């Protein structure tokens, strides 16, 4: 009984990390209308940057985040202006192909710089810290913290998207770029700001990923697939749905892992495919209005 409870708790907590991976992908997908195939690789790239910062200054990854966030925003801005705004977006295939090209470049670039050894960010004592609210039930403090960060991030994004004037513009662009332009929305500026939000989730997600799991230059693919599954199940533009979907995939993975470790990823994929088969529109489709 306590075994089952532990699996469920771990699954729910893991869902928080997955929701953070997915948050950025969901925004790019929903607003910029691109499936950023390089999303996972960008996460891994930023995690390596965090690793370099931590190693060079011997600081905690949480402290490194203070430098990482501006760096990620700057990098994202440079990419946005230098590459993305030059892409011919009339054909949605082209941006996707560009992203795929970047994925290949990032993977092999990281391989050349860092080799294939799996790396991890060291957050110190908090990693082993656990509480036991009931006998036999163990809860990792770090995992709870990650879930709380996910909830806070989603609450902030939800408020920005549904309660601010900027949010109205983002949603207008998301619904129809042409109509938004007609009513005077500055599309380029909106895209740039939305992309800043994406890079914020990437910086936070990369550090939490690096603390919680090992990563190597080719880890991006598995992170992308998880993020993608969460976005599709959660329903585009539905941020709380993203959290719920993260928990669904997290639970699936943990249940799989409790049977055999090698089933962990596969269980997530299978649950995703079954949901896709039954409800192609996702479990929590976007609320209209």
């Amino acid at each position, binding site marked *: 009984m306590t075994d089952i409870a532990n699996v469920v708790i771990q699954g729910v907590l893991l869902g928080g990390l997955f929701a953070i991976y997915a948050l950025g992908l969901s925004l790019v*997908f929903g607003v910029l*209308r*691109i*499936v950023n*195939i390089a999303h996972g690789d960008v996460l891994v790239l930023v995690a390596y940057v965090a690793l370099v910062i931590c190693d060079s200054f011997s600081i905690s990854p949480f402290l490194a985040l203070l430098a990482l966030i501006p760096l990620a925003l700057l990098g994202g801005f440079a990419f946005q202006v230098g*590459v993305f705004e*030059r*892409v*011919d977006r009339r*054909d*949605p*295939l*082209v941006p*996707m*192909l*560009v992203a*795929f*090209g*970047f*994925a*290949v*470049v990032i*993977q*092999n*670039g990281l*391989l*050349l710089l860092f080799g294939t050894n799996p790396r991890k960010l060291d957050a110190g004592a908090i990693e082993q810290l656990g509480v036991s609210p009931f006998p036999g039930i163990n809860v990792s403090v770090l995992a709870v913290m990650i879930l709380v960060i996910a909830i806070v991030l989603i609450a902030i994004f939800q408020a920005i998207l549904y309660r601010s004037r900027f949010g109205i513009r983002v949603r207008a662009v998301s619904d129809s770029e042409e109509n938004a332009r007609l009513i005077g929305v500055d599309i380029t500026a909106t895209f740039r700001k939305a992309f800043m939000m994406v890079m914020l989730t990437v910086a936070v997600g990369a550090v939490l990923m690096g603390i919680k799991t090992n990563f190597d230059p080719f880890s991006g*693919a*598995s992170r*992308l*697939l998880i993020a*993608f*599954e969460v976005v*599709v199940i959660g329903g585009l533009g539905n941020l709380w749905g993203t959290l719920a979907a993260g928990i669904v995939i997290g639970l699936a993975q943990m249940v799989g892992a409790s049977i055999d470790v*090698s089933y962990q*990823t*596969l269980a997530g*994929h*299978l649950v*995703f*495919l079954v949901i*896709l*088969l039954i409800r*192609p529109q996702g479990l929590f489709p976007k609320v209209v209005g």
Partner: protein
Amino acid sequence: MTTRYRLGGLSRLDTTLMAAGAVLLALLLVLPLVASPLVVDKLTLLMIYVLLAVSWNLLAGFAGLVSVGQQTFVGLSGYFVLRLVEAGIAPLPALAAGSAAVLVVAWPLSWIVLRLRAAEFAVAMWVIAETIRSLVMFDPLVQGETGRSLMTLNAMDADLRRTIVLLAAVLAVSVALVTSYRLLRGRLGGESQAIRDDEEAAGSIGIDTLRVKRTIFLVSALGCTVAGSLWLASAITYQPRTAFGINWSVFMLFMVLVGGLGSFTGPVIGALLLFAIQEVFGDYGSWYLAGLGVVAILFALYAPGGVVGLITGRSLREPLSMRKTLVAPRG
């Protein structure tokens, strides 16, 4: 009085290109008589690339379905061949049957994935590739990461095996080129290009979009499975990580994007280019792959029409174009 327009036919350049292609493929058929084993192996690889590029272009260039999961079919056909050989079937029939068997998987798959929107389709195919790879790796026959060799194929006379594989590859490429040409010049080509350009509009004028997409999906899957079988026949060892590797998608994307997405000649040019680049830079490993990525990005940004687009420019007519052009009657 109404003017009767007709569909444009082939230009002189088109017929010359077709004749040259046929002569080249015929030359490849007699080549094993004189060429060294190394050359035969390399040409087999080139044929596999052409087959993959043509298949991927059929899907992405003509039906607008970009997939980053076509390695599903490459990997699965190798696995089926392995299983069939294990069941006691001779290697050559097994290679053929393995390719066909994949369609049993591709057909039901098409029902799931073709309902998705384009962007979701792309990544969902990747999830499927990873799922099937995990499942295949649970089969003890494959021996996990180690992989397994096709012993019975290895027992064949090496030169004979090489020759047969190259001949099969040339045959497969010829069939793929002729089939896709006939498909695309025909009704299906018009329908699929209409779907690629605007799926809703295509549906509203009475095109059964799901049927057209499914046909293209299955033909493309078949091309990838045959390529997978041929690759296994020349590499002999089957490793699930390589067979289901994302690198197949990287190569397909590179060839089609650089050659010319949605043109008939583009994938062939792209395959030749990838083959040449690999011959020269292949030993550089990660540098080489990163370079492929950079070239693909540059083409996507500055020459989305690929080499074919660059050659043809705006004024000239695209060689062997699949576009339907109307020609006014003379006089």
